């Protein structure tokens, strides 16, 4: 149990633009193991929501089952949350989003929850480009059921039981890019510098924002032979880019040198400024993104950063051509055609 909340808590931080304090974004006391990566991700979520000045009750938290899926209980205590069943968060999120397009949907899942039992739902929520943030807290194992390898465990990685994993791993970012997610990023629970702005960008994107956060399981998969341990990830990650995220309301204060920085403007006029390193990955190009992921994997490296953004992507509501009003706000007047219309219909069946 982590009574201690990792990182950056500033007791005298001023309230954000919406008038909320940091603690308005906090949740219940975590019952995860002390040092669990998931708690750091939770802290980053709290921070990102605070900094974006999202009204806390305008967020809907959703999850499946697993240690990671418990997380939503530990952040945003003023938001409604739904801890559903194993692997089925995406469909719940789809329904919720269809019902009310005006809220922000934040799904948290685990690698077991998403890459195994939830593979189908994950793939199809991505394919529909559902407007949500989908975070996988990826520890390469099933924490809550005591450490079995998950489908994202790398081949040869060695967990607590000592037997190396024999199966190929699934790269959820690659799959997400391939299946049409509008925004795809990868980060590390131990890197709040990267994670917080990435989550802010993800929260601002309209469509499926998929974020795979490597989040070590200290109890079952933080061993020297594990490629999802703190140590390993720290040593083997490489950022595709560094970036600044500027929410639309905010004034742009930094000057960016021509040519060295690329701006990607999202639907809501927020901007991601990418500072190009030697990677030179064009993040609006699916093929480059997938190729870069494969390339790094071959070198034994973990590519992190924002991997792909489609600033033009259409979300499910656009695809389905649904009304812009929240469906759950419509009443009889809007929904019920009345008895006269029914009489007409009856006539057609005579």
């Amino acid at each position, binding site marked *: 149990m982590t009574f201690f909340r990792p990182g950056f808590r500033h007791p005298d931080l001023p309230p954000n633009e919406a008038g*909320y304090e940091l603690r308005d974004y906090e949740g219940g006391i975590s019952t995860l193991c002390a040092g669990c990566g998931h708690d750091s991700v939770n802290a980053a979520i709290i921070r990102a929501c605070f900094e974006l000045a999202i*009204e806390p*009750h*305008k967020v*809907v*938290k*959703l999850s499946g089952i697993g240690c990671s899926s418990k997380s*939503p*209980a530990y952040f945003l*205590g*003023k*938001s*409604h*949350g*739904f*801890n*559903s*069943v194993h692997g*089925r968060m*995406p*469909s*719940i*999120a*789809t*329904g*919720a*989003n*269809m*019902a*009310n397009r*005006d*809220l922000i949907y934040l799904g948290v899942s685990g690698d077991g929850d998403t890459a195994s039992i939830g593979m*189908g*739902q994950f*793939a*199809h929520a991505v394919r529909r480009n559902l407007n949500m943030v989908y975070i996988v807290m990826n520890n390469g194992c099933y924490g809550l059921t005591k450490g079995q390898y998950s489908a994202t465990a790398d081949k040869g990685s060695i967990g607590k039981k000592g037997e190396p994993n024999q199966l190929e791993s699934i790269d959820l970012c690659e799959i997400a890019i391939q299946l049409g997610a509008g925004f795809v990023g990868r980060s590390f629970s131990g890197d709040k510098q990267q994670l917080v702005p990435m989550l802010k960008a993800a929260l601002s994107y309209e469509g499926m924002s998929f974020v795979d956060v490597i989040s070590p399981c200290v109890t079952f998969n933080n061993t020297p032979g594990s490629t999802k341990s703190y140590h390993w990830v720290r040593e083997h990650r490489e950022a595709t880019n560094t970036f600044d995220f500027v929410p639309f309301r905010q004034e742009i204060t930094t000057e960016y040198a021509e040519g060295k920085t690329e701006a990607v403007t999202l639907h809501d006029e927020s901007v991601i400024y990418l500072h190009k390193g030697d990677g030179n990955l064009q993040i609006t190009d699916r093929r480059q993104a997938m190729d870069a992921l494969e390339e790094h994997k071959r070198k034994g490296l973990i590519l992190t950063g924002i991997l792909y953004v489609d600033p033009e992507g259409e979300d*499910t*509501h656009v695809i*389905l*051509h*649904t*009304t*812009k009003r929240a*469906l*759950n706000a*419509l*009443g*009889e007047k809007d*929904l*019920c*055609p*009345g*008895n006269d*219309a*029914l*009489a007409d*219909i*009856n006539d057609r*069946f*005579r």
Partner: protein
Amino acid sequence: MKRISSVNDCVIRFANVNGSGSASANNLFAKAVFRMGVPVSPKNIFPSNIQGLPTWYEVRVNDQGYIGRRGDVDMVVAMNGQTMLRDYMDLLSGGYFIYDSSRQLADDFNREDVIEIGLPLTSMCNGAFENPRMRSLLKNIIYVGALAFLLDMEFSVLTESVEKQFRKKTKLMEPNLKALHMGYEYAREQYPDVCQLKIERRDKVGDAIMMDGNTATGLGAIYGGATVVGWYPITPSTSVIEAFGKYADQLRVEKETGRIKAAIVQAEDELAALGIVIGATWNGARAFTATSGPGVSLMNEFLGLAYYAEIPVVLVDVQRAGPSTGLPTRTQQSDVLSCAYASHGDTQHVLLFPASPYECFEMTADAFDLADRLQTPVIVLSDLDLGMNDHLSPPLVWDDSRTYDRGKVLNEEQLLGLQERWGRYLDVDGDGICYRTYPGTSDKAGAYFTRGSAHDEYSVYSEDAQTYEKNMQRLQRKMETAVSMLPAPEIFCENEGGRIGVIYFGTSSHAAEECLDRLNREGIPVNGLRVRAFPFHQQVSDFIDRHDKVLVLEQNRDGQLRTLLINECEVVPQKLISVVHYDGLPLASRTVYSMLADALQKAGQHVSGDDRNQGGAA
């Protein structure tokens, strides 16, 4: 030879090959009977494939309004070589055999007691029409024209029907009218005075409509205010969603933008379909899904979640013959048990049993109120026969003063006005139903964390034994509350001193009630009750109590409704006699009569009537 002779009382079977366009021609015929004011009931018995296999369309014409299947055939229109001999053999003695005489009948067609009526359909078509696809379609129209003559129908009703149907496709109207005439003329010339079956205009259908149950269900969802649909295609439920979609496109369009006030999501499978519904209703929309048995099996886990986390769900199960893939295009009532107790652990679900398109509409619309009020899944148990066949039904009605009852939902103002701390699972009214809030309601109050794991009254995770138990008891209480909200059973007939009752539901009702009429006419006092919902109303127990024996008629092998009755009404099992029929065909009154007669005999009630249908009396 004695020819079968009747007025407005016959069964005509059309034997075709599927994918050949026959169903719409046959329906044209049935519709014409209906438009002549005569009760009629068509049953499409089709294979689980797309093209090339045998398919039958059975039309019962019955003046007295008995619209169940009858079970034997007075006339067959035998258009399928593969089944022709069997179709011939299945005819009643004195019946009429209509066939394509472009080819000669084989030698084994040698019954003496059958009237053979040859129509050279292929030759006629080839002579009259150019387009090969049209030729094969119009063959069907020719025999409809011939029937009109043979059965002495008002020909204008048919021509008007064709005109109506092709109003917007005038190019097609002309050849269709031509084909109708050709058939009529040919029969008039070749077979005057051959057929003694007649269909005469009556005024027996009143303002009734002829609609399939699935269309009515889809409309019920429109009127009930459903806005989110998660679904996955499966016969025989697909047309529920198609109907919803079609009427949403007509009636739910936002004038200014052309956008739709509904979101219909074709899910990746049934698990996701129900997940979408749960997510949507939890978030304050009305939502539903429609599926059939295999889908229900896949939805088990989510049904348990919805029961335990208390999330409204409307699920339409259009039953087909199980188990497993079973007979996907045949009807059955065999998901009763699996729906009533779906999912592991102690669970129970509300079931509604519509028996007509009217009830499909009404119960589906009501299901949304019920689900919202009870905060639990409500399953509408339809079936293939009801869902996919046209049924004579009272017209659909909507009370324009009706408002949606969203149950116990608190808004921000109400939350802030509360004297006591709000708890999502706090039973303040003692009826087992608690107050919920929608996401986004307020940043000051009302947020909670929904879960399928155990929780206390404030929806906080809890492993406390008493907390768990208390919550489970409340859920039980909620089901008791449910009873008072559910539609009461319908007593069909109750004779003073009748010792024996019959209980039935859904599409078993037509045959059951026809047989009850007959038995009572024959002086055998048998009473009938139609169950309309589960958990059962007190009246159901009372009915059972009032009788010495009760026959339970249903369309499954294991007597699933009977199991529910025994278990939930605490009835002595020996008192309930199972009368089951489960071969996948719509229940035929002829079969039911003999099954009931057998059962009555066993129950100590002498039955004299013979088990054959006589001149439409049964």
